[in-house]
């Protein structure tokens, strides 16, 4: 594994290592030979066009989809050995929000993996769940039915559920999709505080205008891995062109980041 060896010699711990990963749906490849090593303590984005396999990559890392070949290692161990260290945030649209349950119950689900079979949530679990809710600013909604939440609130409790896992590596599928500006700013702040605590966050991100502002590491994929590395060296016009192909005309302005910082400023001005 040439990539990871090089990084290790720089003295960085690798949080997530994916080696030669190939995923296919009925013989049609969705991900082809993806190979990368993500150092810890990074806010990392996965970008790429629709259907590039971004969500599939996260799901395969989590073992939700079986890979045709390749391997995944988390903190240099197989996923099964360190599952408790990894928290996954699925897309908000992947569940039915009419499900009869309340906010605290959903966040408590973050503790189920640690609780073990047949046991019920205890005081420590409830406290962890409440503290996670406080971190996303939703503590006063603990008893609210989930069917009554807005999109941004749904996203926050999904994040709170992952926080309740108290993991080291966070994998998030489009946490910024369809949320209001205030929620976007709150989520960004949360990601930054996770990094400050020494955790590693890998996020599927669809908004090219904010990628360079929000993240310090990027994986650019279009079925294959096009480029990966630190944002400033990797997120270049050339790599964007390779990733998005002919569609780049629209995106070329994005590459020189004319809108830098404007999003964050806007978000701060607009209270919810």
């Amino acid at each position, binding site marked *: 594994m040439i990539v990871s060896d090089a990084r290790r010699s720089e003295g960085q711990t690798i949080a997530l290592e994916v080696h030669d990963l190939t995923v296919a749906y009925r013989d049609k490849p969705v991900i082809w030979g993806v190979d990368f090593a993500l150092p810890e303590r990074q806010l990392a984005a996965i970008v790429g066009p629709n259907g590039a396999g971004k969500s599939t990559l996260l799901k395969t890392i989590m073992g939700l989809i079986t890979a045709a070949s390749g391997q995944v290692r988390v903190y240099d161990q197989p996923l099964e050995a360190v599952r408790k260290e990894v928290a996954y945030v699925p897309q908000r649209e992947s569940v039915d929000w009419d499900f009869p349950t309340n906010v605290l119950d959903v966040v408590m689900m973050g503790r*189920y993996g640690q609780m073990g079979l047949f046991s019920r949530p205890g005081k420590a679990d409830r406290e962890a769940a409440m503290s996670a809710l406080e971190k996303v600013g939703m503590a006063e909604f603990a008893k609210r039915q989930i069917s009554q939440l807005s999109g941004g609130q749904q996203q926050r409790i999904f994040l709170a559920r992952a926080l309740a896992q108290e993991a080291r590596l966070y994998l998030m599928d489009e946490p910024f999709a369809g949320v209001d500006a205030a929620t976007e700013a709150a989520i960004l702040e949360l990601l930054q505080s996770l990094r400050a605590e020494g955790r590693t966050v890998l996020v599927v991100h669809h908004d090219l205008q904010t990628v360079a502002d929000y993240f310090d590491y990027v994986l650019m994929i279009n079925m294959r891995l096009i480029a990966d590395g630190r944002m400033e060296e990797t997120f270049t016009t050339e790599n964007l062109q390779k990733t998005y192909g002919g569609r780049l005309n629209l995106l070329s302005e994005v590459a020189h980041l004319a809108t830098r910082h404007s999003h964050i400023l806007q978000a701060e001005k607009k209270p919810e």
Partner: protein
Amino acid sequence: MSMEFEIIFTAVMVATACALVGTFMMLRKITMLADAISHAVLPGIVLAFLLTGSRNVLPMLIGAGLLGLLTTWLTELLRNRGRVNEDAAMGTVFTFLFAVGVILISLFSRQVDLDQDCVLYGEIAYVPLDLETHLGLTLPRAFWQTGGVLLLVVAFVGLGYKELKLCAFDPAYAVSVGISTVVWHYALMSVVSLVTVSSFESVGAILVVALIVAPPATAFLLTDKLRWLLGIAVGIGGLSSVLGYYVAAYYNASIAGGITVVLGALFLIVFLFAPDNGLVIRWQKGRRTPQSVVAEPSR
């Protein structure tokens, strides 16, 4: 014990077991798999008869449980490997297995004390006539069979509550925290198989589907809390059993038919008049609200 009580008590036990598993099937949007399994377990029951030569409960439950698992497995296999839609896969598998059961019954009709009408429609009125003695107690055979399965269902739902809830709400997340949705899916389907078998002789393969589907569907219109949903579904199942018995007795009709008609009527009443989600309330709200606001998302 009066015969009336014995019949109603059996019906309430069947309804309770059905409502509990039915709630989780509804939340996972797989209620129609109950229809498939209730038919597909037939060959398992017949084979258990043929192998043991008796109407012993345990071999029957094992046979049915295995066929339930086989149905689930075949449905998944066709869907994942063979480019077949889930509903088409289910329809093919369960009708095939049911037909195998029907043919087995006709082939071995002399050995098998089971007639096809009974399998399809059940006859709960015969419950008090068929007694069995265990632990020094002589009770209707249905009590032992249905009661045993009900205890199992209550234990399953009680112990696996949080796993069943998470697998229904967010299966991808469940897998991500190390809870196997496959294991829980097969476990739920095995329990559903046992529930349908224990209901066979009382309400039959067709109406057991009503007992699995209707109580949770009705309860869902009345609450948005899972524990209440389970409780109300059980209550509706029980109430329908009692009322259905008296409807049937009054008209001298099939008891299973009576129960199902009451289930349908209760659903209709709730659908129209439920406090939050009822059609009448929503219609009234709609009239008072300007047109632009009416387009609110309906649940």
